């Protein structure tokens, strides 16, 4: 599906559009640039659904009173902020006409002297005033869930000379090419993020990637890590950067050619290790082919290869994984460990539009999942295993607290997703709020721990005909009869409002084959391929191995 980005700016943004068009994947994203200097007029026009917009303005170009302040006129802060409010309100209205709107914050014009030493003084300094303007803009837009602020200071840092006066006077282009290139990369990354296409798993090598030296040769005590050694500190810094990403929801894994016991011992016992075994969702430490190990680990964690970044100091291993698994992002990697953090943070593929509790605790969930698998291996039968799990699903209607996670699940789930509708928070709320519709979420736990909000089903009833519109389940809880519990819930909800039949229509994608299998396994009738029915005169049995709990109200 082709989507489009509309660029609205108070200056000539043609270089941005050029870089964006060349960076965007062929055919998936198109870009158009509105005539510059007509920001309010352009924001006032609808830009058609399914579009993104990027509003990049300079403070002096959009807030007239700030421009006067730059000319050292005396201006009242409240007048400046009133203009910011007006701009924000215009953006909020505009955001209703696009799926997602990205807005740049403001930076001081390059080379602007302001009040020099006094420029941060409240009530006088321009830097102080601009900071207040940015905060006001952020606060004003905080409730607009499809508006995201981007910081142009990051783009301007990419150039030693971010402003070219001649290009401004000749062509109304205020920034250097590197700035536009960086902005294009970040907007593309932001679009990936709101579409749920961020990278969610970083798989790292160990020797000379996570620490300096080869643990098999020098032992844990001989590794360069931390201490009074700039290389050791660089590896510590890299581990800290990885841990920071893990804290905000990105998972970590290891694929390394090593003796597993020796490597894990180093991870657990080295006094300067920042990452410990519990920080990793999984690992493959052996002498097998790394591409095979990456594929197996990703499969174990039930992620797609497109969610993965693979980091390895060895160019031959990188090339092997890159060629065998083209969906995995395998960046070129610097040979100097001092550059590792910068290289990691420069990838720009880890942004997400929502961070849920599930994201923050995912590593723990994977750890308990490992216990579950060990338990499954030891159980005599699958039936025993499922019985022993004591799975419980809390069923709840859509509410404000669950909406962010539900939005995330809608936009990230591929394998068990019957309709694969990609919806914003506002669209979900609007859809579920219409008459005849209901949307339920399932938060699953078992005796090993909490698996979080992992299931969604939605129903629409017209003339006693119920249609199961969404049937979404995180792959984390697939294969434990929750699929059938969800069908039970859907049929029950249909019966409760007097529906005579319930229909589910499977919409195939290249990744949701497991959904078709789950529907077929459910024993719903399939009168035509991909269309499933249930006669609501009879109830659909709830699987014995799943307990359903209704904390607020029954569906």
């Amino acid at each position, binding site marked *: 599906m082709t989507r489009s980005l509309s660029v609205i700016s108070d200056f000539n943004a043609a270089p941005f559009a050029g870089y964006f*068009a060349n960076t965007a994947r062929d055919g998936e994203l198109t870009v158009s640039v509105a005539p510059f200097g007509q920001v309010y007029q352009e924001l006032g026009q609808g830009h058609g659904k399914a579009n993104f917009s990027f509003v990049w303005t300079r403070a002096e170009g959009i807030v007239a009173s700030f421009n006067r302040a730059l000319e050292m006129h005396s201006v009242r802060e409240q007048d400046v902020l009133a203009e910011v409010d007006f701009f924000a309100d215009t953006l909020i209205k505009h955001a209703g006409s696009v799926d997602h709107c990205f807005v740049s914050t403001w930076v001081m014009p390059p080379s602007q002297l302001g009040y020099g030493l006094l420029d941060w003084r409240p009530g006088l300094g321009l830097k102080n005033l601009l900071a207040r303007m940015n905060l006001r803009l952020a606060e004003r837009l905080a409730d607009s869930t499809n508006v995201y602020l981007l910081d142009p200071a990051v783009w301007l840092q990419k150039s030693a000379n971010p402003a070219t006066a001649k*290009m401004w006077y000749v062509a109304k282009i205020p920034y250097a090419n590197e700035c536009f290139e960086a902005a294009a990369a970040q907007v593309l990354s932001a679009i990936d993020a709101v579409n749920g296409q961020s990278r969610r798993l970083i798989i790292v090598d160990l020797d000379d990637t996570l620490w300096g030296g080869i643990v098999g040769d020098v032992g844990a005590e001989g590794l360069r890590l931390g201490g009074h050694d700039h290389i050791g500190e660089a590896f510590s810094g890299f581990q800290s950067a990885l841990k920071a990403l893990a804290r905000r929801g990105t998972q970590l894994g290891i694929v390394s050619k090593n003796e597993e016991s020796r490597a894990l011992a180093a991870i657990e016992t080295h006094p300067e290790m920042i990452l410990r075994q519990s920080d990793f969702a999984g690992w493959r430490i052996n002498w097998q082919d790394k591409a095979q190990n990456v594929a197996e680990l990703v499969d174990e964690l039930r992620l797609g290869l497109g969610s993965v970044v693979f980091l390895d100091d060895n160019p031959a291993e990188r090339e092997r994984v890159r060629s065998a698994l083209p969906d995995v992002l395998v960046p070129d990697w610097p040979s100097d460990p001092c550059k590792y953090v910068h290289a990691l943070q420069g990838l720009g593929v880890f942004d997400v539009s929502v961070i849920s509790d599930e994201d923050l605790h995912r590593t723990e969930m994977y750890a308990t999942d490992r216990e579950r698998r060990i338990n499954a291996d030891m159980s005599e039968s699958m039936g025993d295993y499922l019985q022993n799990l004591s799975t419980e699903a809390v069923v709840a209607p859509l509410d404000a607290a669950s909406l962010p996670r539900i939005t995330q699940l809608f936009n990230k789930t591929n394998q068990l997703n019957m309709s694969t509708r990609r919806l914003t928070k506002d669209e979900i709320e609007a859809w579920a709020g219409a008459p005849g519709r209901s949307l339920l979420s399932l938060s699953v736990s078992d005796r090993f721990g909490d698996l979080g909000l992992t299931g969604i089903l939605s129903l629409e009833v017209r003339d006693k005909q119920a249609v199961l519109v969404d049937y979404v389940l995180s792959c984390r809880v697939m294969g434990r009869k929750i699929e059938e519990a969800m069908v039970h819930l859907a049929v029950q909800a249909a019966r409760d409002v007097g529906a005579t039949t319930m229909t589910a229509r499977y919409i195939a994608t290249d990744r949701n084959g497991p959904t078709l299998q789950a529907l077929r396994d459910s024993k719903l009738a399939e009168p035509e391929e991909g269309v499933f029915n249930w006669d609501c005169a009879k109830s659909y049995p709830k699987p014995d191995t799943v307990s359903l709990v209704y904390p607020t109200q029954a569906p």
Partner: protein
Amino acid sequence: MGTSDDLLGIIFESATILNGQRTPEQRIALEATTVLVGDGGRLDSLGLVSLLVMIEEAVEDKMGGECSLVDTLFNENSEDRIWTIADLVENISNELEAS
């Protein structure tokens, strides 16, 4: 003072940066005979100005001399003049020698 080859290198570097913001059909070939202005030229006015400003800055950074290509172009009276990359090299050399 740089040689013609140095100048050609600077122009090609600048053209490579410019090509990064242009579609494959709009990109200019890195050859001395490439036409920049006039019949057969692929650059629109914005592309041309961007390229010339980049070259001006690079010449100043790498050779320490100033040239004013944009001003020269805008002051050209003969609108049907054709500028190739080789012409640009000659123009810059002349400006640098005169300064």
